[in-house]
């Protein structure tokens, strides 16, 4: 009795195994790696073990001791892997600008001469206590909250208390907020255009419906980059839209449509519209066609019939469409980069800078983590609200 059941379970497990593996390899593992890279900071502790021991008794305010300097030079002599040394330099330079040129110089001197070295004589920056503070902070712990704090414009000051970064040094919070506002705006615009469109598409049939759905699906099959580039051509000052407006005498000078928020919202709405129309359409198509005439026969005004009958029934489609659009919009990168101005860049552009420009994967991971956390909170609120609506009469 048990044997065939176990066999069946094994077969079903085998059937989902590819999916499971896919999820683990391409979703769970990268997520864990990202979280780990945001908080782990082992490079200095690993490469500077002697320094780490000798700075543990240092108060971080008095001048660096002779033992610390000797330990530091000894550690530098031990590092044989250039790429590892590069990671160390990048870590230190990210905390304090200047290490990038200081470290190779010091390492070269440490390798060229045996015995003790006067670091301050080698480079006067070693006389500056803030460099030693950076070394000490980096070497004494293998995990850090530095990246996560910096992702929300905070830092630890010399005494270790959490303080906000100077206003002109970082704007991650503002950019994060902007990302959510833009994603919400795009979602709103998609609902405003998508719902009537889906209603029309659901109310006609035959070739008309095919045409309307084709108009939604065709852009979906075109590359995002191509569609963005097409909007660039349409929206620019001497582009199609502005030249038509100017020739028809509506305006005398071109309306600024590109390198500003309006252009980004227009292009993103167009790109994401199918994700709103299709769920709403699939819900509306299942609503019996005789409900609206029935409401009318009971004397309801068309607007009232829409508000009381069609809208509540179609809301499920609107909600799932909104979720799809909102979540996709949060991660937009190429459209704001090409169509937007400096004030329309979303958080992904900052993440991209840290990942591809600065090779600071810790910061990129931390920003991604903050975005993920904020999105999860919003999603939890949505779940809470939608479940309340279902239970309340």
């Amino acid at each position: 009795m048990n044997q065939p059941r176990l066999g069946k379970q094994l077969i079903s497990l085998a059937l989902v195994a590819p999916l499971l593996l896919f999820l683990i390899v391409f979703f769970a593992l990268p997520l864990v790696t990202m979280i780990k890279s945001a908080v782990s900071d082992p490079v200095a502790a690993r490469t500077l073990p002697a320094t780490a021991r000798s700075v543990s008794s240092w108060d971080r305010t008095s001048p660096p001791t002779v033992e610390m300097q000797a330990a530091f030079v000894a550690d530098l002599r031990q590092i044989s892997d250039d790429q590892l040394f590069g990671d160390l330099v990048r870590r230190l330079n990210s905390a304090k600008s200047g290490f990038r040129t200081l470290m190779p110089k010091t390492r070269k001197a440490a390798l060229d001469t045996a015995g003790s070295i006067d670091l301050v004589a080698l480079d006067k920056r070693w006389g500056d206590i803030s460099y030693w503070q950076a070394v000490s902070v980096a070497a004494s712990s293998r995990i850090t909250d530095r990246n996560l704090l910096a992702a929300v414009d905070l830092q630890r000051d010399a005494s270790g208390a959490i303080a906000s970064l100077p206003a002109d040094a970082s704007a991650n919070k503002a950019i994060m907020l902007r990302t959510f506002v833009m994603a919400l705006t795009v979602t709103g615009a998609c609902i405003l255009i998508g719902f009537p469109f889906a209603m029309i598409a659901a109310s006609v049939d035959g070739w008309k419906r095919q045409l309307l759905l084709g108009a939604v699906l065709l852009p979906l099959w075109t590359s995002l980059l191509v569609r963005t580039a097409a909007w660039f051509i349409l929206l620019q000052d001497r582009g199609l839209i502005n030249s038509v407006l100017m020739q028809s005498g509506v305006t005398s000078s071109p309306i600024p449509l590109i390198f500003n928020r309006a252009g980004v919202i227009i292009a993103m709405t167009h790109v994401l519209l199918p994700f709103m129309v299709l769920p709403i359409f699939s819900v509306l198509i299942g609503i019996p066609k005789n409900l609206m005439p029935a409401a009318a026969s009971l004397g309801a005004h068309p607007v009232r019939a829409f508000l009381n009958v069609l809208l509540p029934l179609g809301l499920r489609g609107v909600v799932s469409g909104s979720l799809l659009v909102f979540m996709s919009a949060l991660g937009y990168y190429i459209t704001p980069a090409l169509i937007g101005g400096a004030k329309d860049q979303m958080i992904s552009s900052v993440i991209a800078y840290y990942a591809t420009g600065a090779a600071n994967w810790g910061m990129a991971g931390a920003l991604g983590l903050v975005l993920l956390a904020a999105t999860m909170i919003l999603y939890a609120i949505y779940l809470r609200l939608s479940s309340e609506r279902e239970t309340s009469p």
Partner: protein
Amino acid sequence: MKILNATLIVCALATIGTATAEARDLTVVSWGGNYQDAQRKIYFEPFAKQAGKPVLDESWDGGYGVLQAKVKAGVPNWDAVQVEAEELALGCADGIYEKVDWDKLGGKSKFLPAAVSDCGVGAIVWSTGISYDGDKLKQAPASWADFWDTKKIPGKRGLRKGAKYALEFALMADGVAADEVYSVLATPEGVDRAFKKLDELKSNIVWWEAGAQPLQLLSSGEVVMTTAYNGRISGLNRSEGKHFGFVFPGSIYAIDSWVVLKDSPNKDTAMDFIAYASKADNQSKLPEYIAYGLPNIEAGKLVPAKFQTELPTSPDNLKGAISLDVDFWTDNSEALTQRFNAWLAQ
């Protein structure tokens, strides 16, 4: 069953992986646009013919993290890459490039001293400066002060998005002499001063990232002036009959280099390619399409006189121009970029 499935998938992935790693053709990466078109014509295609092997070319817009990630991933999918000076310095220190075989290139003495390093061979000497459409602007800009003066020349300006170049140009517009720019920028007050100057122009700036973008912005009239790479300007003038101008005084020149990524499966072929692209008679063909200076000393002499005057390395064009301070930017790039991004967002 599950284990069997998993093993099968892993095996399949592994075979695909190794198969592509072995079969992949030499992949050369440069900066796109009409510059790469020229390189394709004079370097990539003739080299492919000579070697009897196809050469793939891709383009990128810089970013040290891109290269580092590729090397750290194990077997990089790029072989020879043209990099900017800081990427060369950073990567050489980090050991993500193969060492250059200078014997293949005929020795270090054949090249400009600034174009020689352990990890890279100079590919071009290029300038970033003001460019404008001579057909549309009656009064040509002559300095960064003109670039900042929106009353004298109204309209939008294009700048490369990033702290590098923008801060230097802002200081020059604020009256700092070209040769003092980096000593002023090294002080916190100097940085504040540069950002303050950028504030003045902020609402009139269109930011670009890829080298082909400023040409498009100028052609469409989206901006009246923009910073651009000098070679692309003369290239476009020749290929499309435009009259774009480039202002050499106050421009910043730098050297781009060819590097081979560490553990590239095609590293020998990549080095052969770099040697081919660095040969005097091959390199001297470049200025006909794109007016960049040539690191091979012999190649510089072979360039016809009519093209010489357009090169950033010609004595007239070097007057008032400065060299990019690579050390300054390797140290300060991250902190200043962070501040620059914060400034942009305000």
